[in-house]
């Protein structure tokens, strides 16, 4: 499957199929269902400087062709990751990318600095778009200045591949991508979740403890494909597309819109084997359409 090789910054991926942060645990949760070595890589869940308990239950609601979540970056902190999780991942022959979140620029920088020495971590994804935390997260991702300032600071602390994950809850995502590119990001990933809300009308209360949460799943795919297409027209760095991907066909929409790689998120919950199927389906498409290099399909729209 050499025809599926793609590159993101200095990362060489065996194929464009990654898993989205917060939807695939640390990979090991899915080891009974998927040969992890078949995937291009994993983006492990949002990691912060200190441990976080996340938001109160309830944290999810099903919506038409999607779901809302309000996890709120529950994780045990970067040091726990380094000492307890990272050693268990070393046998996996796929790229491991850590999603980095923070409430302040200093937080982001410190997490990046601590991850930088890890030999198997060749890239981080900086999350400036989490809608489910009060401080940081989306606050940085909704203005060019905020996005640029986080990128600039993390760039100075981390010299391997730096991916910045963008928020779709903005008027002009292309301008934010450009701001991030200008500060030295190697790649942008998009979209994070759309801010949404659902109400249990019988009980007259919101489904989520936080009232609003992040909408993901096939419902948002048309928005995500459009944003990837807009960003692809605006920046030169590679784009990682995500948002409601359930199949090779969906993944190819993102690639044709301009993405170099893709992430599978919410659909891992519906079909835990879906990532592996997507690799096969993209390869089958290339076979049927005589595509010798997946990069030929990128941005053809």
């Amino acid at each position, binding site marked *: 499957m050499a025809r599926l090789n793609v590159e993101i910054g200095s990362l060489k991926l065996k194929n464009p199929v990654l898993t989205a942060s917060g939807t695939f645990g640390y990979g090991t*949760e899915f080891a009974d*269902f998927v040969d992890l070595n078949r995937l291009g890589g994993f983006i492990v869940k949002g990691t912060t400087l200190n441990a976080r*308990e996340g938001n109160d*239950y309830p944290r999810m609601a099903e919506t038409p062709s999607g*779901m809302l*979540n309000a996890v709120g970056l529950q994780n045990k902190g970067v040091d726990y990751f380094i000492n307890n999780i990272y050693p268990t991942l070393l046998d996996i022959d796929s790229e491991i990318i850590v999603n980095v979140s923070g409430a302040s620029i200093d937080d982001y920088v410190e997490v990046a600095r601590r991850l930088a020495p890890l030999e198997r971590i060749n890239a981080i994804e900086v999350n400036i778009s989490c809608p489910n935390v009060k401080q940081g997260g989306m606050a940085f991702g909704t203005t060019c200045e905020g996005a640029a300032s986080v990128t600039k600071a993390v760039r100075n602390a981390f010299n391997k591949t730096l991916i910045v994950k963008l928020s779709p809850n903005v008027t002009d995502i292309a301008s934010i991508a450009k701001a991030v590119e200008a500060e030295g990001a190697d790649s942008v990933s998009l979209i994070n979740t759309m801010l949404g809300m659902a109400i249990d009308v019988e009980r007259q209360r919101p489904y989520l403890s936080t009232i609003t949460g992040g909408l993901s799943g096939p419902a948002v795919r048309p928005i995500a494909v459009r944003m990837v297409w807009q960003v692809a027209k605006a920046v030169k760095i590679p784009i990682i597309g995500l948002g409601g991907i359930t199949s090779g066909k969906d993944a190819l929409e993102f690639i044709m819109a301009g993405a170099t790689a893709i992430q599978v998120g919410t659909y891992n*919950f519906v079909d835990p084997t879906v990532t592996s199927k997507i690799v096969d389906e993209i390869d089958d498409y290339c076979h049927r359409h005589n595509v010798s290099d997946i990069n030929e399909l990128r941005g053809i729209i």
Partner: protein
Amino acid sequence: MKKYILDFVVRHNEKLGGRFGLLKLTPANGSQLPEIAAGQFVQVSVDGSKTTFLRRPISINFVDKVTNELWLLIRNAGNGTEHLLSSKPGDVLNMVMPLGNGFPVEDATGRVLLVGGGVGTAPLLYLGKILRDNGLDVNYLIGARTKDELLMIDNLKEYGTVYISTDDGSAGDPGLVTQNKVWDEKWDRIYCCGPAPMMKGVARNARKSSTQCFVSLENMMACGVGACLCCVERTTKGNVCVCTEGPVFEINQLTWQD
């Protein structure tokens, strides 16, 4: 315990009282059921419902090794479960299974009380069989609003004595399960599954009598495998996933207020 993603064929769909039904299924490929512990659950795909996106977690009601059947006791709680309950013999349901940890049974001894309410009765059938097979004195305490909503009582009787509480007194003791006369007796261990207020009441009774007590939680979940972090319960160790750390918890692990 290894997890599988497997197609199951519906063999029987029995309508029970109220909004409940019982599906009996067997692996579509004819293979033996994998090893399953009492109290584990499955995540079922709901293929024919437009308004259902995620799988539905359903606790395992019974494992019949003779017929190679898995039983799911399902409550019609919305479009997803309604669709599952409309399954016909021959229909195929995809499941991720078995999930969660199940009830601890190896260290149980003596007289045990299994308390269930509503669809929470489901996992207690197989649990009772396992405990009875292990030589324990199995006793059920089943609660319902009214007689017609009592589920699978005859099946439960195969594995133990069944005590009943109904809100309206139409069967067994009148009132809540926590007011049943069985609480006058001494129990070596309590297992409980049902609505949260009931489980909290049972936990209070257990603490009063210093009886070890395990409850099975039914928090809403998306993935069922510990990835989405949506089904968390606050415990003495912080927020943990019910799907992987539970669904069964010893009550002192939880932070329920008395």
